[in-house]
């Protein structure tokens, strides 16, 4: 019973509403809290994107509600250019941080990492609770920026100085709102750092007996590697945020050179470098986008295997790919800066690893295709989102080929081609990972299944609609359509407005379809079909416990792992072996 020491009760089950549901240290509750935060954030982010898309094609429209909410931002209901930019900035910030970094890792990772490795909870439950509430606290200044001073920041989620550092001289939207943004992001980095320590320690130390590293579900590998990326990259971002705050409020000039004249005023700064921020930001920013996609890649691999009734092709190869994606993501940050004024001799030092990183991405894609080959696909809603992910990842990844080459980037940088690329991989493919995970794990969390027909309706509109939104953006980019423009007036882009109209209509349609998902989610919590322990006939440890799991995940049982994570395809009635099924005689695991 020495194993009991490994699985000593981390904490006793709490009583009382506050300890159970608000300040809970139970990873399953915390994960759900992360999910609800992300769900709230994604709808805000989506509504912001509607306003942005709407303004691009109907700039003179009077939106009375907007005029009331923000008389400065939309006087008489007509959006000002700075308000457009602020909506864009908060859209990007909320989506990247509070949705794509929160839901796949903070939500699903928190709920299922401990269970999938056979642990009772995370290694540090108190830190876990703190990491959620710090994330929650980070959202507050961001949303508050809408209601203070001259509004939310307008410098984009990338916040390049000097624009983001010199304050209101550079225009409206750069005052208190920008300061609140920096504080918000700083708090978020702290939350992430705490969270990633938890994930790493838990994965290394709390695996149950028999759960070797090479028996971990790919989801766990993805969460583990993502946590390492978070630890290393968010540390750099938090430093950059502190330094930016110093420039804004402390009179320093880390990012601001001398001799700048803004609004006819000579700025009291000297000696700084705007490129320093770009290096710090993108050193974080590139691993960040892999933080956004790796968990989804893990979820897709995992769910696809279940739905295909086949082990994922090349488990080892997949693990090595995820590791190399993680490692290489730290070497490519300069591809965001080819034209930034950094030494042109550095272009190829970034371009070569950027092209090289397509190798593990291509391998993963071929592994998924190879998993589908010869499979026995069950077209459930989670399966559809997996298949959709593969298609979207191919599309989004291939546009990266163009952007990785400095010479082509001379033309494509800052055009809609870039917007198409990152939205397809992050905004859609990664979202599809979140959707797949939601439909797949919902029965485990709530004990009920989401409606499959509503799920499929949601899938089809979103899948086709997402292509309708983002595929045309490639064409816009090729025609030289510049991004982050509040309007296309008196320039060569005005002829492209009909394409923008098509995109806007698609965006509004896809947006509306997300309410089908929201309804399905909320309604199914109480009224969905009751799910058993293992409705998908899946092999990983979470499916060997009840739906929902008991407080300490496995009741009084300590799971012992005898099998790898993807033992499917055995033929016959029960075509799979669960990880903690008894060891089969003469079967090597």
């Amino acid at each position, binding site marked *: 019973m020495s194993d009991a020491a490994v699985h000593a009760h981390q904490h006793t089950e709490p009583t009382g509403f506050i300890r159970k549901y608000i300040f809970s240290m139970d990873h399953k509750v915390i994960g759900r809290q992360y999910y609800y935060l992300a769900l709230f954030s994604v709808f805000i982010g989506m509504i912001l994107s509607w306003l942005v898309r709407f303004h691009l094609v109907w700039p003179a429209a009077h939106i009375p509600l907007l005029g009331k909410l923000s008389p400065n931002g939309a006087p008489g209901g007509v959006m000002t250019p*700075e308000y457009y930019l602020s909506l864009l900035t908060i859209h990007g910030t909320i989506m990247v941080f509070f949705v794509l970094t929160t839901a796949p890792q903070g939500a699903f990772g928190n709920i299922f990492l401990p269970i999938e490795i056979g642990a009772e909870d995370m290694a540090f439950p108190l830190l876990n609770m703190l990491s959620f509430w710090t994330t929650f606290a980070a959202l507050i200044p961001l949303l508050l920026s809408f209601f203070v001073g001259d509004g939310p920041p307008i410098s984009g989620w990338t916040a390049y100085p000097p624009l983001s550092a010199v304050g209101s001289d550079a225009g409206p939207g750069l005052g208190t709102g920008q300061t609140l943004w920096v504080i918000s992001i700083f708090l978020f980095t702290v939350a992430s750092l705490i969270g990633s320590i938890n994930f790493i320690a838990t994965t290394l130390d709390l695996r149950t007996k028999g759960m070797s590293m090479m028996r971990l579900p790919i989801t766990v590998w993805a969460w583990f590697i993502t946590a390492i990326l978070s630890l290393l990259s968010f540390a750099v971002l938090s430093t950059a945020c502190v330094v930016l705050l110093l420039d804004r409020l402390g009179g320093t000039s880390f990012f601001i050179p001398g001799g700048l004249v803004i609004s006819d005023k000579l700025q009291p700064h000297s000696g700084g470098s705007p490129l320093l921020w770009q290096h710090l930001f993108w050193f974080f920013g590139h691993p960040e986008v892999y933080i956004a996609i790796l968990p989804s890649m893990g979820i897709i691999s995992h769910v696809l295997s279940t739905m295909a009734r086949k082990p994922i092709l090349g488990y080892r190869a997949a693990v090595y790919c995820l590791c190399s994606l993680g490692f290489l993501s730290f070497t490519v940050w300069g591809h965001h800066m080819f034209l930034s004024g950094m030494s042109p001799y550095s272009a190829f030092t970034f371009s070569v690893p950027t092209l090289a990183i397509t190798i593990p991405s291509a391998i993963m894609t071929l592994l998924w295709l190879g998993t589908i080959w010869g499979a026995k696909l069950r077209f459930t809603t989670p399966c559809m989102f997996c298949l959709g992910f593969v298609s979207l990842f191919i599309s989004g990844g291939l546009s990266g080929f163009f952007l990785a080459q400095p010479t082509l980037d001379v033309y494509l940088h800052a055009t809609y081609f870039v917007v198409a690329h990152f939205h397809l991989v992050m905004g859609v493919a990664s979202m599809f990972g979140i959707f797949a995970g939601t439909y797949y794990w919902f029965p485990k969390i709530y004990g009920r299944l989401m409606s499959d027909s509503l799920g499929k309706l949601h899938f089809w509109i979103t899948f086709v609609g997402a292509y309708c939104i983002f595929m045309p953006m490639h064409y816009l980019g090729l025609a030289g359509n510049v991004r982050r423009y509040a309007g296309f007036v008196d320039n060569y882009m005005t002829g492209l407005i009909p394409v923008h109209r098509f995109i806007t209509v698609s965006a509004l349609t896809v947006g509306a379809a997300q309410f089908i998902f929201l309804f399905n989610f909320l309604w199914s919590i109480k009224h969905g079909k009751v799910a058993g322990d293992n409705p998908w006939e899946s092999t990983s440890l979470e499916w060997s416990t009840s739906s929902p799991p008991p407080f300490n995940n496995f009741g009084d049982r300590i799971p012992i792992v005898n099998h790898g994570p993807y033992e499917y395809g055995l033929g016959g009635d029960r075509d799979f072996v669960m990880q903690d099924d008894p060891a089969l005689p003469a079967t090597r695991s």
Partner: protein
Amino acid sequence: MQHKHSFLVALAVFALSSFVSAGDVSGTVKFDGTAPHMKPIDMAKEPVCQKEHNPPVAIQAVVPGPNNTLDNVLVYVSKGLPAGKTYPTPGQPVTFDQHGCMYNPHVTALMVNQDFHVTNSDPVAHNIHPLAKVNKEWNKSQPPGSAPIDAKFDKPEITIPIKCNIHPWMRGYLAVFDHPYFAVSDADGKFTIKGLPAGHYTITAWQESWGEQTAEIDVPASGAKTLDLTFKARPVY
């Protein structure tokens, strides 16, 4: 009958004299020397406004009128008003328009808390940024078709430059007074300050490139007073 006739004449004179407000100060602002060369404004970045000015409009640093007069000079009472006296804020707004990517009027004067009513008559967005140092500095955009902006300045300030962020050449000036004794010279250099009570005053004229000229004046209990102010011309780079 002679008495009745002269009585009627006296009555007419008295009636007429009541239309001439006591204490008007009028005059002309002039300059000595040659008008400096005013560079044409390059509006290439906004074709819609560029089209409105053919030939292009010159910078407004110095706007001469006929016979060496000066447009856009702010003339005001700088000394001599009784200390601590407050004057009612006029109810009517002062209008400020943006047309052809130029501010109209170029120099605007108003009283504290008087409504500063800004409109955009162009098909492009403008951005109004009064670079106030005493009053609160603000910066607002006005897309075409949006509502007019109404603002107030609650402290006297002479003068506040106004710029448009979007169109760098746009420049205007605003002067905020806590009394009503000010005027801006017109295209012929003429100005009138109305209704000044009798007394001894210093009048200041302010021109954006050439600074200030002052003059002392005694205003009678009734009747008009003429005052001409002259600036020495200097090149403007």
